[in-house]
């Protein structure tokens, strides 16, 4: 019951000295707001990264043919490397024990036409396992099946962007589109995927929604190579059964492919999960740095509270004396003043949380930065303001509690 009374007294005091209380709370407000905004930027970046790497597959190893200039390509070929090929795929499949699935892919930039519309798209030759490895979700229709692959059928699965550009109204399934000089039947449309805005390792940023997938056999059988010397495959995606084995498998794969390519440096290995870990490590350092800056603001806020509480205790010496004379114990006075500093810091904390939330929303609204406020960050910031209130309120409250009643009651 005394707690209720303490809170009431504290709030009355806060309302009575509005300007003073507000100025006192500013440090906490900015501290909490910056902690929340900072953590929301960190969290946003983390989510973006996870989304990005999930798209690449967390259990996947990607072997990618390097983008080489014509001159480099000639040099490599002269040194007996034919670039990534189905032979590499066979070797990996036969030698590496940890493999769950493996999918080769070939790529070329193509001109696609439908009725009077045309656009540039990436034509990608894949095997039927491809969508399982990368967890592709279908918007409609189905992905390339084994039969279509075996028979080199002229079918294709289109990305959402292609679908929306060509088939604004009608159903794309069953329609024929012209890719380079071939007519292919659309058998499926993929769900829209997040844009790749950054380059990941050797994977240049591109819009996956503009991709068109055809059976690899069709790709090789019916389309011209992009360049005379181009490799048979652009990429091999390997899904490992257990993510624990991923680096072991990657090492083995690198050895196999390297041997096949006569030690030419014409391919690279990308392990999305390792890149994710690396990025997280960098981000953690960045977060700690920003967190320390925000913590300094909270510290300064705490000192502000201590300062004002010391002044309040002086101001209210007589009140303390009266309360003590009519029976308040030291602890009662201590808890009264701690309640007051807590009221200041918690009110500041709540305002800070609100400011932090709006800051984080504004950041994602006005800039390209993605932010995400988690309950955890709000709790952390709030907890911090409580700790500041207790820590910096303790000294003044202790001082109040230790005032001698007889002297303080006569204090003018």
């Amino acid at each position, binding site marked *: *019951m*005394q707690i*209720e*009374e303490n809170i009431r007294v504290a709030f*009355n005091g806060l309302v*009575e000295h509005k300007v003073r209380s507000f100025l006192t709370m500013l440090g906490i407000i900015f501290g909490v707001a910056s902690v929340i905004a900072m953590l929301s930027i960190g969290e946003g970046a983390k989510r973006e990264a996870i989304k990005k790497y999930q798209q690449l597959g967390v259990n996947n190893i990607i072997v990618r043919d390097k983008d080489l200039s014509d001159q480099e390509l000639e040099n490599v070929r002269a040194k007996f490397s034919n670039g990534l090929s189905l032979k590499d795929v066979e070797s990996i499949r036969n030698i590496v024990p940890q493999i769950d699935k493996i999918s080769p892919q070939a790529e070329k930039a193509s001109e696609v036409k439908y009725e009077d519309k045309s656009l540039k798209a990436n034509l990608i030759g894949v095997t039927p396992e491809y969508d399982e490895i990368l967890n592709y979700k279908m918007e409609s229709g189905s992905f390339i099946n084994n039969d279509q692959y075996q028979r080199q059928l002229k079918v294709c699965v289109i990305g959402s962007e292609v679908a929306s550009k060509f088939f604004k109204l009608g159903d794309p399934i069953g329609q024929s589109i012209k890719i380079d000089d071939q007519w292919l039947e659309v058998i499926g449309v993929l769900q829209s995927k997040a844009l790749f805005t950054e380059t990941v390792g050797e994977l240049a940023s591109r819009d996956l929604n503009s991709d068109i997938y055809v059976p690899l056999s069709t790709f090789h059988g019916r389309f011209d190579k992009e360049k005379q010397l181009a490799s048979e495959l652009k990429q091999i995606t390997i899904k490992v059964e257990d993510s624990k084995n991923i680096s072991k498998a990657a090492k083995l794969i690198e050895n196999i492919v390297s041997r096949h390519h006569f030690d030419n440096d014409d391919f690279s290995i990308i392990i999305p999960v390792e890149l994710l870990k690396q990025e997280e490590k960098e981000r953690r350092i960045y977060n700690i740095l920003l967190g320390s800056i925000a913590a300094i603001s909270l510290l300064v806020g705490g000192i502000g509270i201590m300062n004002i509480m010391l002044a309040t205790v002086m101001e209210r010496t*007589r*009140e303390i*004396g*009266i*309360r*003590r*004379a*009519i*029976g*308040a*114990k*030291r*602890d*009662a006075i201590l808890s009264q003043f701690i309640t007051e500093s807590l009221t200041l810091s918690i009110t500041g904390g709540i305002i800070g949380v609100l400011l932090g939330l709006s800051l984080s929303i504004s950041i994602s609204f006005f800039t390209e930065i993605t932010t995400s406020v988690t309950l955890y960050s709000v709790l952390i910031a709030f907890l911090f303001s409580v700790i500041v209130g207790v820590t910096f309120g303790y000294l003044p409250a202790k001082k109040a509690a230790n005032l001698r*009643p*007889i002297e303080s*009651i006569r204090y003018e």
Partner: protein
Amino acid sequence: MLIEIKDLRKKYIMGDIEVEALRGVNLNIQQNEFVSIMGPSGSGKSTLMNILGCLDNPSSGQYIFDSVDVSLLNDDELSEIRNQKIGFIFQTFNLLPKLSALQNVELPLIYAGYDKHERREIAREALDKMGLSSRADHKPNELSGGQRQRVAIARALATKPGIILADEPTGNLDSKTGNEIMALFRELNEEGNTIILITHEPEIAEYADRAIIIKDGLIISDKPTSGNTAEVLSENSLTS
């Protein structure tokens, strides 16, 4: 015996000089007495009052209050005694300016641990008794001096302490109001409260049954008053 004091001494250090405010006071006060303590300023009467009220500790000597040796008590226990057994009344009223009359009266009840409902009821009753029910929600600065002192008396009585320590209770009041307040003390004494009154005005001291005079830290006189209190009261026609 409610109060037993033996060879009570109190020393202060002021700068380099040691001042002995009380130099061996012996005093017994019984339940339901109405005692006044008079003396010029600097005589040690306020020091005595503070020790009697458990606001201060003696340097030496013994103070037994309600069969408890006060010098053996810690700060919390002293606070409890002040809260439960002693009602203070001050010259300057010492009400909390931001609280209403009712809230001021509730204060000791908060520290006594009463719940909100109970303490509100007790505080209202106490204000009623002082004839202030209509002023319950007023702040002290909206009340007259006499009303303020009545609020202070209501606060002192809230926990039914049995003993009231009044330090110059009429010092800030005009004589008419002062007499009203003294009549009130008389009444409270008749209801069974022990009252110890500190004053420097002999006519105020006359309201008590026993007058103690203190000078230079020693009691120099301790005897019953002339007994004309009843006359004083009727002159002011306040016995209603």
